[in-house]
C-alpha cells in the first residue's frame, strides 16, 4: 500500500467521534465574522453598522489577489465592526452580527437534490469559487481560486483530493465522505474541469475502510476519478507527502506542487466547491469535530462561521472539568486557544480538549543524539542540529541545512525522548532565516 517514503510517525488515532452523524450546531446569539480568515489580504467590509443582512449575503469582499470574499453566516443586524482578540490574543477586525431568525438569500438552492451536470467552463467555475469565498479547509485557509490559477506554461495532470485526515482525533472529513460521497465526487469532477486535469485521485488512509469502500462504489460512475487507499502514517496530509504517496514524485525543495503537475485540494473544500458551483451556496458553514477524552458528546458539528467556540463546546456537553488545554485543529498542528470566546473560522477543522495527563511533558533534558527526530522528519532534515544552530544564532548555516523546508508537522518534538521543544525553536529559526532571505532579495 502506498505512503510517503521519508520519516513519519504513528501516533494513536483516538478517533472518538468516528461514525457520529453530522449534527447541526445551534445558531449563536451573536455571530463574529473575522476579516482575516484567509491567508493573504484582509477582506474589506461592504456593510456598515445597522445594516440588515441575510444568510449568504456578501458582507466583505476580497481585499487583493490573495484574499477571499466573506458572506454572512447568519441573518440579522450588523451591530458593529470592531476588534476582537484572536486565538493567540492578537486583535483583529471582525463584523459582529446580532442574529435574527435565519433568512437565507434566495439565490441559494437549499434542497437536497443532487445536481450532477455542470455546464460551466473552467473560467466560469473558478469565478464562481472565488465569488463563494472558498479557502482551503484543511487548516491552511489559502484562497482556493488562487490555487486553481496555475502560472502560465505549467500543466496540471492530476488533481489530488486530500481525504487523509491524518491528525489524531479529527473525524469531520471522514464523516463528510460517508454522508456526502456523491457531492464530493461531483466536486472533484468540477475541479478537474477547472484545472483541465484528466485525472482525479482521492487519497484516503486505510483506517477509514468504510469511506474507501463507499467512495470506490460511487466512483464507478465518475470517469477519471480514482480512490487510492494509503497506509496510515502521519503527516500524510502534508501536501508534499501526499503527492509523493500518490504519484511517487517529490516536489523539489522550495517549489510548489504544480512543479510536478499536481494540485491538492482538501476534501471539505471539494464539498464546498460542489455547494458553491451547483447550489450557489457561498462558504459560511463547515463541519467541525468537537472531541477529547473527557468530552461528554464528541461529534461532528455543522457549524456556522462566526459561532463562538464556547457555544460549540457547549453543544458537545461543555468544557470538561479536567480540561488542561483546548486546541483549535488537531493535536499535532493545531493552535492552543487562550480563550473560547473566539469565533469559528473557515479554516477551523476541530475543537479538541486535552486532559492534564496528555499535556504533561517530562523535564527537558540534554539531547542524547538518539536520531529519533532525524528519522521521524518527513522532510529529511536534522531537527536536533537546527536546535543547536538556533541557540548559536547561526542563520547562514541554518539556511544551508534547509531549515525552510520544514513543514512544521511536529514529528520531531513528538518523538524526542529528551522532551526537547524542537518545533518551538524551529519556528523561531524559520522566521529569522526568512527575514535574512527577504532582506537579501531586496
Amino acid at each position, binding site marked *: 500500500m502506498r505512503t510517503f517514503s*521519508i520519516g513519519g510517525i504513528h501516533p494513536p488515532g483516538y478517533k472518538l467521534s468516528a461514525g457520529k452523524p453530522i449534527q447541526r450546531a445551534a445558531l449563536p446569539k451573536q455571530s463574529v465574522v473575522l476579516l482575516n480568515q484567509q491567508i493573504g489580504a484582509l477582506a474589506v467590509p461592504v456593510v456598515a453598522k445597522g445594516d440588515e443582512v441575510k444568510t449568504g449575503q456578501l458582507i466583505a469582499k476580497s481585499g487583493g489577489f490573495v484574499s477571499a470574499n466573506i458572506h454572512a453566516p447568519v441573518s440579522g443586524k450588523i451591530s458593529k465592526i470592531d476588534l476582537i482578540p484572536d486565538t493567540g490574543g492578537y486583535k483583529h477586525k471582525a463584523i459582529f452580527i446580532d442574529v435574527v431568525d435565519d433568512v437565507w438569500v434566495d439565490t441559494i438552492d437549499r434542497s437536497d437534490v443532487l445536481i450532477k451536470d455542470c455546464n460551466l467552463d473552467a473560467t466560469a467555475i473558478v469565478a464562481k469559487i472565488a465569488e463563494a469565498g472558498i479557502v482551503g479547509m484543511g487548516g491552511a485557509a489559502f484562497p482556493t481560486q488562487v490555487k486553481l490559477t496555475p502560472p502560465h506554461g505549467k500543466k496540471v495532470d492530476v488533481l489530488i483530493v486530500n481525504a487523509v485526515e491524518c491528525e489524531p482525533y479529527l473525524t469531520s472529513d471522514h464523516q463528510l465522505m460517508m454522508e456526502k460521497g456523491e457531492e464530493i465526487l461531483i466536486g472533484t469532477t468540477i475541479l478537474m474541469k477547472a484545472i483541465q486535469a484528466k485525472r482525479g485521485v482521492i487519497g484516503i488512509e486505510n483506517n477509514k475502510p468504510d469511506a474507501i469502500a463507499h467512495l470506490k462504489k460511487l466512483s464507478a460512475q465518475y470517469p477519471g476519478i480514482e480512490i487510492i487507499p494509503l497506509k496510515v502514517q502521519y503527516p500524510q496530509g502534508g501536501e508534499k507527502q501526499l503527492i509523493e504517496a500518490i504519484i511517487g514524485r517529490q516536489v523539489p525543495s522550495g517549489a510548489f506542487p504544480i512543479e510536478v503537475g499536481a494540485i491538492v485540494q482538501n476534501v471539505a473544500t471539494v464539498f464546498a466547491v460542489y455547494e458553491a458551483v451547483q447550489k450557489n451556496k457561498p462558504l459560511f458553514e463547515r463541519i467541525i469535530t468537537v472531541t477529547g477524552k473527557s468530552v461528554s458528546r464528541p461529534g461532528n458539528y455543522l457549524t456556522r462561521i462566526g459561532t463562538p467556540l464556547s457555544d460549540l463546546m457547549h453543544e458537545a456537553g461543555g468544557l470538561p472539568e479536567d480540561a488542561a488545554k483546548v486546541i483549535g485543529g488537531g493535536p499535532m*498542528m493545531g493552535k492552543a486557544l487562550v480563550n473560547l470566546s473566539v469565533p469559528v473560522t473557515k479554516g477551523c477543522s476541530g475543537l479538541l480538549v486535552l486532559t492534564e495527563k496528555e499535556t504533561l511533558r517530562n523535564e527537558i*533534558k540534554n539531547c542524547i*543524539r538518539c536520531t529519533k527526530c532525524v528519522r521521524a522528519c518527513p522532510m529529511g532534515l536534522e531537527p536536533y542540529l537546527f536546535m543547536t544552530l538556533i541557540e548559536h544564532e547561526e542563520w547562514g548555516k541554518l539556511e544551508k541545512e534547509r531549515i525552510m523546508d520544514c513543514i512544521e508537522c511536529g514529528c520531531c518534538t513528538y518523538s524526542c525522548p529528551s522532551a526537547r521543544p524542537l518545533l518551538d525553536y524551529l519556528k523561531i529559526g524559520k522566521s529569522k532565516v526568512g527575514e535574512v532571505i527577504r532582506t537579501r532579495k531586496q
Partner: protein
Amino acid sequence: MAPHIHSGDSIEKKMYGVLLALIPAFLVSLYVFGWGSLIVTAISVVSCLTFEYLIQKFLLKVKPSITDGSAILTGVLLAFNLPSNLPFWIIIIGAFVAIGVAKMSFGGLGNNPFNPALVGRVFLLISFPVQMTTWPLPGEHSYIDATTGATPLGMLHGHFGQLPDLSSMMLGTIGGSLGEVGAIALIFGGLYLLFKRIITWQIPVSILGTVFVFTLIMGLVSPDIYHIGLIKTACPAFHALTYALFHLLSGGLLLGAFFMATDYVTSPMNPRGQIIYGIGIGLITVLIRLFGSYPEGVSFAILIMNGVTPLINTYVKPKRFGEVKK
C-alpha cells in the same frame, strides 16, 4: 505550542530497555563465571553511580541524574568488558575513567564524544595489561583465585590451547570477559533492541556484515594462514565459512555491534552515516585482529570511529525530501 501530544518516549525507557536486553548475557556469564561475574558487575555499577552522583552534586552542582539509567548502563557495559577475576580497585579506577573522565568532563550525557565504558576499558587494558588479559577458565566460579586461560582469539594469536568449537561459543562455555561469552544470549538481546526500536539495524548489520565478508575473503584467499586449527577440510568454502563465523562469534564483536557501537551519543546521526560508521568499525576490527598486536580489536575500532563521527555528521546528510536528482 504544537504538537500538543507526545510519544511518551524517554531517556529512561531507552536505557532500561538496553539493560533488560543485557539480562540474558548476564545470566550466561553468571553460569559460566559464577560469583566473579556478579561481583565485578556490582562493583562496576555501584562505582559508576557513585562517581556520577558525587561529580554532579559536588563538582558540577547540578541535580544528579543517576536515575536516568545511563550510569547503570555504563557500569554494566564496563563490567561486561572485564575478566571476572579483576581486582576490585582496578574496576573502580575503570569506573572513574568512564564516568569522570569520558562522560562528565565533557558535560555529561549527550556531550561525550567517546563511549564511556569503552574508554574505561581501554584505559585499563593499557594500564593493567596483565590483569586485563588473564581470563578465568569457564566453570571457574571463584572471584579470588580462579584458574586462568586464554580466550579463543588469544589462542588464534599464538597462545596455546585447544580452540573451542563453534557450538560452545554460541552457548558461552568459553573463556573471555563477562560479556564476550554466550553468543546466543547476545544475539537474543540485540534482536530485542531491534524489535523494541531502541536501536536500528544499520550499525549492527554493517559491522557484522563487514567482518563476515572480510574474514570470509581472507579465509578463502590464504586458508593456510587464516584458519582456526580445524582439520583441513576438502572444501575451501566450508573452511572459510567456519573461519568467518568464528570471528563473528568471538571476542566482544557481538557485544560491541549490538550494545556498544549503537550508543546514541557517540554514533552518527542518520542512517547513511551509521552504515559508513559500521563498515569502518568492521574493517578496523578485522585489521587489528589479523595484523595488530592485540588479539581483540572491537573496542579500539569503536573508539576510533567515535572519533570520526563528527566528521561523518558534517558530510553525510540524511536523504532530503525533494533532493534534486542529477
